[in-house]
């Protein structure tokens, strides 16, 4: 059954990509074309076949020892914050998460970016 424009609107909301109305049309026809390309995998009798989730078969979960990172992977604060557009002090700065409205008139505080 073909995906409708409203189906695609729902998928885009779930994927957190704000599509324009024109993009919605394009993506609807694309997704229907792409899903058609996927049909061959439904043509086989797959009962009793185990899935392969990654190609190195005999590898089970790889666990690291519970110790402080010996490889120096922790980034310095300025490096970690350096690629963010909005920061405050030691933190990434984001708009309202829980409420629907922005912090009105909060203005920029010291250290804001």
């Amino acid at each position: 059954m073909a995906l409708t424009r409203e189906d695609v609107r729902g998928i885009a909301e779930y994927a957190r990509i704000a599509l324009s109305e024109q993009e919605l049309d394009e993506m609807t026809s694309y997704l229907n074309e792409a899903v058609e390309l996927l049909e061959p995998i439904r043509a086989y009798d797959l009962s009793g076949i185990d899935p392969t989730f990654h190609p190195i078969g005999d590898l089970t979960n790889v666990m690291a020892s519970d110790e402080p990172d010996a490889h120096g992977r922790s980034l310095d604060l300025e490096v970690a914050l350096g690629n963010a557009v909005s920061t405050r002090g030691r933190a990434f700065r984001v708009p309202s998460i829980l409420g629907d409205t922005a912090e009105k008139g909060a203005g920029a505080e010291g250290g804001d970016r």
Partner: protein
Amino acid sequence: MPYIDELSAAEIAAGVARGDFSATEVVRASLDAIASREPDVQAFLQISADLALQTAAVTDARRAKGEPLGLLAGVPVAFKDNMQLVGTRTTCASRMLEHFESPFTATCVQRLLDAGATPIGKTNMDEFAFGSSTESSAFHRTGNPWDTQRVPGGSSGGSAAAVAAGEVPIALGSDTGGSIRQPASFCGVVGMKPTYGVVSRYGVVAFGSSLDQVGPFGRCVCDVALAMDALVVGGRDPLDSMSQSVPASFREQLEEPVEGMRVGVIESLMEHEALSAEVRAALEDARAALETQGVQFVQVALPHMEAAIAAYYVIGPAEAFSNLARFDGVRFGYQEPDCATLAEQTARSRARGFGAEAKRRQLLGAYLLASGVYDQYYYPAQQVRTLITADYRAAFARCDALLLPAAPTAAFRFGEMSTPTQMYAADLFTISNNIAGNAGVSVPVGLGKTSCMPIAAQLQGPAFKDHALLRVARALERGVEDAGRTCSGTVAPGFARMGGVLA
């Protein structure tokens, strides 16, 4: 003095070690060669000239002090722009990461630097590696050095073009569904996708985590072997949990005879309707080149190969959607201003930051992972993966390698592939290898009789038999050279000896 593009990586490293020329002179020649070619080729997104000169100065100082030099001492190398290198941006050819400064260096990049290589710059690619032509780069297109009106292939098109144009002798790419082997084929260079796990992916922006693998491009098999040795000599990388240790003996085994080895061909693939006549003819020449060296050919079958494209375009987009969920515009990446809520900021940042193909793949992945749909496509795709892997196992019980095309045609013209799904279908000869995690290498075998563009043969080998596979690749290259049809080892004719005198 020679032009920089006349030297292989091995010759450059040997020349630097002997003192024929300094690493700094090599960098200057390489930068000069790049400056004269880039207006036409546009292989690079960023040239790291200062970093290259600093690195070369360190190499020259080491030599002056009599310290040992690495395998790639003074060799200019380029990196696909999804690989982190401190001191450069890592953009993935996306507006999303246009200003992203690499916070650390990828292991694959570091391994080449540890071997003494000089980092020349970051190469163009399809945005986030989604594509087969480098046309989805958000910044500019890259011309195929053999005909700049044609695409270089993709997604590692910039790396392939940089090597083919003689800008660098070695470049790294990544291959999730053919993104090293297909551009290597289009540009007439050697490109290797090692077995999944052979090269660390730490610091490479993830696309499809169960499929992604890093590998080198070179103008000859010998340089690819050299790069492979440099990539694996450090052993297993604990920072990539899939990383496996393999011996750094690619060069050592390269010239061993292949007499008595068996190579399989898959008749149904050779008769595939999508395969162009000139590629089919080139594959027959490749077969003859190996047969004269005592390789025996056997017929094998991969019965589930027909489902490989479908399985790949389920698994790849699903994994891409998961991996690209991290681009929310908060910690890094494009951030849309003046949004009232985080949800709005995320959706609008992603809408503005990602190009069309990146959106397509993520929407497809989001759909396929939705409850109800998962059981129809995602789970069956992973079952089909089991069948494809078993097909390969059965085939490799009868042969040491498979000979097949790398792409159905030679490089196509810009805009020639009119729909995304038409482009997807052209991946049919490369993707099953990623699905099974095996090794593959693309070797130039001459120019197409009608297109006059490079054509490659692809060799695929069993997982972790990468050394033997490269040995067959070298034999093929040798056979093609002996037949006088070579385009291996050479720079695309329009760009040969264009600036870059070593002086």
